């Protein structure tokens, strides 16, 4: 039996849309709309989806960096959505985040050492003398020099900045890291360096990741299980090989068929998806995907399919499998 480190139940995050001088509340952007899944200790759950599907909002909401609209998030069995400030601070030592844009994720007025050391300072880890040593240790672990501690972000390359971001997240010895598109801003040769670092650290410190990306190949490289998101909801969740080799949801199938493989011999048939992703302010009724689905049925526009287990470790939200 796996030990669930984090479990999300029916999580929703709506952003209000306001209008006029008095900021009347006119609608909601339903960024995350009823999402449930879990992450086991030490595993990597990949979360993939196209831009605007709500994957980043999900990552932030489940760490309560943004307040959820409704739903529950259990960390080691305790519902953190009701936690107060003090309890949350304790959570921050356990659960960390890595960001997409290495440029904007570091304070330009702080040295690399201060940025990494901030976590230690906030949580009162070590004495004033010990902290620089710990920072140097962290820098070495992510492949930077201890001398980098006195540098400022503008003096580093993109890859080095991303390493700094990882070192900062590692500083408190977390058990869970939400990595929000950590390699999408990097060049391919550097991307591979960071992906290797991420998997090495997992082995060394048995960290669980929620790895968010839009690139299926990248997700496949690091994840044991993968969740596919479409318009605020998870449409399919399965182990890596199941999802890549036997995708069940029509959206997953289309997405996989659209991946461009760096191999000129491989000619695969692409499943065309008509139209565009509808607005999350006014998502279609029933199945969110029915407006573009090649296998659409009558029931799809009426009833929203639930995420159900079809096979062992393979969940899908589609009426085809009712």
């Amino acid at each position, binding site marked *: 039996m796996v030990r669930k480190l984090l479990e999300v139940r029916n999580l929703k995050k709506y952003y209000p849309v306001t209008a006029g001088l008095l900021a009347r509340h006119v609608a909601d952007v339903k960024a995350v709309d009823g999402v449930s899944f879990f992450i086991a200790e030490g595993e990597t759950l990949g979360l993939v989806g196209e831009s605007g599907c709500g994957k980043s909002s999900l990552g932030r909401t489940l760490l309560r960096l943004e307040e959820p609209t409704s739903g529950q998030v259990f960390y080691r069995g305790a519902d953190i959505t009701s936690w107060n400030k003090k309890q949350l601070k304790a959570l921050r030592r356990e659960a960390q985040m890595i960001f997409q844009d290495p440029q904007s994720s570091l304070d330009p007025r702080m040295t690399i050492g201060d940025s990494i050391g901030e976590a230690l300072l906030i949580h009162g880890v070590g004495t004033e003398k010990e902290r620089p040593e710990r920072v140097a240790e962290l820098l070495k672990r992510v492949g930077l020099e201890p001398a980098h501690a006195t540098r400022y972000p503008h003096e580093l*390359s993109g890859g080095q900045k991303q390493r700094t971001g990882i070192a900062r997240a590692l500083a408190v010895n977390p058990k869970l890291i939400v990595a929000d598109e950590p390699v999408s801003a990097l060049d*391919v*040769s*550097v991307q*591979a360096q960071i*992906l290797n670092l991420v998997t090495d650290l997992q082995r060394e410190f048995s960290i669980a990741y929620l790895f968010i990306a839009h690139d299926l*190949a990248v997700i496949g490289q690091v994840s044991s299980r993968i969740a596919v998101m479409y318009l605020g909801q998870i449409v399919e969740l399965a182990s890596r090989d199941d999802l890549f080799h036997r995708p069940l949801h029509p959206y997953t199938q289309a997405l996989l068929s659209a991946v461009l493989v760096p191999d000129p011999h491989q000619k695969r048939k692409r499943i065309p998806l008509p139209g565009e992703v509808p607005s999350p302010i006014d998502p279609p009724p029933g199945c969110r995907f029915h407006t573009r689905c090649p296998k659409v049925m009558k029931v799809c526009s009426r009833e929203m399919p639930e995420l159900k287990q079809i096979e062992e470790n393979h969940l899908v939200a589609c009426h085809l499998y009712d």
Partner: protein
Amino acid sequence: MNNTILQVSELKTYFFTRIGVVKAVDGVSFGLRKGECLCLVGESGCGKTATALSILRLVDSPPGRIVGGEIQYHAEDLLRSPVSRLRRIRGNRIAMIFQDPQSSLNPVFTVGDQIMEPIRLHMKLGRRQARDRALHLMEQVGIPQAKERMKYYPHQFSGGMKQRVMIAAALSCDPEILIADEPTTALDTTIKAQILDIFRDLKQKKDMSILFITHDLGTVAGIADRIIVMYGGRIAEAGSVLDIFDQPKHPYTRGLLNCLPAISERREKLSPIPGVIPSLIDPPEGCIFYPRCQQRMPVCQQKRPEEFVISGKHIAACYLYA
């Protein structure tokens, strides 16, 4: 036999910044043949975009300046023709598409107006005829309800639709050559595949020559006839798509192919290229890949390698093949 329509020889484009001279393109030569799709591949800062911009002399000046070389197009050197002559070629015989459709479209004019601009300019058509042609083009690149959408402003379109608009504008005068600078990079997986389909169509149906610039090897595999791999402002390797993917010769090309994660199988560990992308201010005497190369030899540091022929059109700038 010789159906080369655009011949770039020894092109040198430098950027004169306060910090120093950035040799963005440093002696690049290649030919583009009728009806082929030639891909320029490389990571950020390798000089691929500067090469593309140099062809139509669109490099921002200052700080950029084309300091040497020739660009032969139909018995005419584009680098030495008067600007008035060049203007009759731009958008008419050689069209160009840029990376970010969001910023490439002028936000304050309707898309119809922006597609009609080159038509009215080069084909000397009246308003009505130009409108009809624009309408036709929009339908051709797959924009539904084109008649109505002509009056829309760019912000009312999605990213994919904007890139279709850009393609329609580029195609408006039936150019002989289409230069596309990372046209799919800013797009989502499924949209990217749709846009690539349009390019494939163009190549087949219109017998257009395409110079396609990208950093994504997956995209390259799906569209290229020939590939030029660039590194540090120079050509590292060039050859047919099968030459490059099946028998990569240059250590950089090999490294690049090796560090990609794949969907089909998970690699235990990626083999990234160590080190960082070099600065192009004061590049070293010898091979610019030397510091990161796994197979470096003493000679590499002394003299810049020339382009050695492997077989037929397959060349590599590496002393391994001297």
